[in-house]
């Protein structure tokens, strides 16, 4: 009996050490910053999920268990939180997530047609990721830019008044070969989010 118990303790330790090593020092540091203003650790559950997701793109079962362990809560409880929120991804997503607004103002202004066009261009339906792992298409509730409907976010960039021209400029011409597509996407898209959104919103508001 005692032997069995000791065995279990050893086993538990092995699992725990695996779990703790699963979060990077940087992730732990960022999560601990959030812990400074919550009275108990599980209070930072959503922040922790977002921090880890921002580094890894999504929340795998391993990530989930590691975060739960760090926050001293059960993985099941954290799973309940993670699956509640639409911006926490429990499945792998592409490099950029396309959040296409399907709410009422965009619907009136032709969001269904826009969805069909994007789906046809990228070859994916809602919830699917392109073969090159670049995009995942997800519907999102009203993005609060209804005066310039239809709208979507691609990664951090907000695109307003979506039409064929915008779909082409954002997703490129699929007939182009992969290399040139790659180079265009890599040049200028990363870190240009704020600038892009700014110019969009400055143009968009009155």
């Amino acid at each position: 009996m005692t032997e069995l118990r000791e065995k279990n303790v050893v086993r538990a330790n092995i699992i725990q050490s695996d779990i703790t090593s699963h979060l990077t020092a940087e992730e732990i540091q960022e999560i601990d910053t959030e812990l400074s203003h919550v009275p108990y650790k599980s209070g930072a559950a959503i922040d922790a999920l977002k921090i880890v997701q921002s580094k890894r793109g999504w929340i795998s079962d391993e990530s989930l268990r590691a975060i739960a362990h760090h926050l001293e809560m059960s993985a099941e409880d954290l799973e309940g939180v993670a699956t509640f929120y639409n911006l926490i991804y429990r499945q792998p997503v592409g490099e950029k997530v396309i959040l296409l607004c399907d709410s009422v103002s965009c619907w009136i202004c032709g969001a269904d047609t826009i969805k069909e066009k994007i789906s046809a261009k990228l070859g994916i339906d809602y919830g699917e990721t392109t073969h090159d792992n670049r995009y995942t298409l997800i519907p999102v509730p009203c993005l609060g830019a209804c005066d310039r409907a239809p709208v979507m976010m691609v990664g951090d960039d907000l695109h307003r008044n979506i039409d064929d021209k915008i779909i082409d400029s954002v997703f490129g011409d699929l007939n182009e070969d992969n290399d040139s597509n790659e180079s265009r996407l890599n040049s200028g898209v990363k870190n240009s989010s704020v600038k892009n959104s700014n110019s969009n919103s400055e143009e968009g508001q009155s």
Partner: protein
Amino acid sequence: MEKVLTRNIGENPVPTNMAAYEANGGYQGLKKAMDSMSNSDCLQVISDSNLRGRGGAGFPTGMKWSCVPMGEKCTPGHKYLICNADEMEPGTFKDRLLMEYDPHQLIDGMILSAFTIDADIAYVFIRGEYIVAIERLRSAIKECYEKGYLGDNILGSGYKLDLYVHPSAGRYICGEETALINALEGKRAIPRAKPPFPQVSGLWGRPTIVNNVETLCNIPHIIDKGAKWFMSLGRGEDAGTKMFGASGKVKNPGCWELPMGTPIREIFEDYAGGMQDGLELKGFLPGGGSTDFLLPEHLDLAMDYNVIGKAGSRMGTGTMIILDDQTCPVGMTLNLIKFFAHESCGFCTPCREGLPWTRQVLEDIESGKGVKEDLETLAYQIGYIGAMGNTHCALAPGAMEPLQSALKYFRDDFDRHISGGCCPYHQSGSA
């Protein structure tokens, strides 16, 4: 007209930093309050001003704040002020504008509001998708700490406040204040039973006030210029100005600051420019997706809480969604019900099961598979789900508002779907 909320947001706006905000009279109210006002003085001014919450429900702000236990009546510990910046009501796009272009105005309002209820920690609970607003708020908060407007001993008054930005992980229900508090606590965003009200037991069980962005943006101006001035801004029975907007197939969709009580016709014709060529106005939702439809005959009503309420709808967020004569009202209602069914938190049965059922019935009607009895089913659902008290929170009753008014005003369209076996609007080549 005097611009209040958008005085730093012009035709081609640039984001306002500390210098620009202060150059235009910013933080004057804060200096005045820290210098010579007590928190009960501030509460008195806000109560006198007749300011009502701009998030949709229109609850008097002063009355909400007056329920927070103060001084010796409050057990020792933190008190919280939360800005509800989770703008997710379909068709609403006013708070984004205020936060992206004048973040200091919101922070100014938050410091003053927190001071009034003696809160020492404040949060901006903001949509995760509002990336630009999040960045601008964070840099404005940094400027405030450097200036001594936030942190310990604000402007030498001895008052202390810390302000954090909390980007949300999504879900419409987070806009409900107690669900928002659960989300801030790292839990599933399921609304809490009331009482206890958040003013007494909110975040971490402590006294908490949750106010909408636009409500808080009004506070610095009221403290600075007084309640009488604020009351004089309204054209009708309500005080102040309001962000009004129009989306849909109008000529010039947008968002404008106008006096409370501005007639709907003025917003629709003078600002939104009327319908696009070749289209007629069929109806509109006056303030977001969970308000009842109104008709062209209601255009001369004033945008006041009670006036719109008497007409059978709600002013809600004040951003109108316009329905034209070539867009299917059944399809539009279906789109709204789909949204609410998807956004139900799943806690109570009428909402979790009733809304998808309603959606199914509407899908059948829209796709031409509907039968006459479906309209009776819808009426039954409206009576059951729409009645306050049958559901845990206001989400499902809110969802029934556009449906019940669509059935009332656009009954012919429902009948045509059923008798014709298809959507008559689709046939004519429109959405």
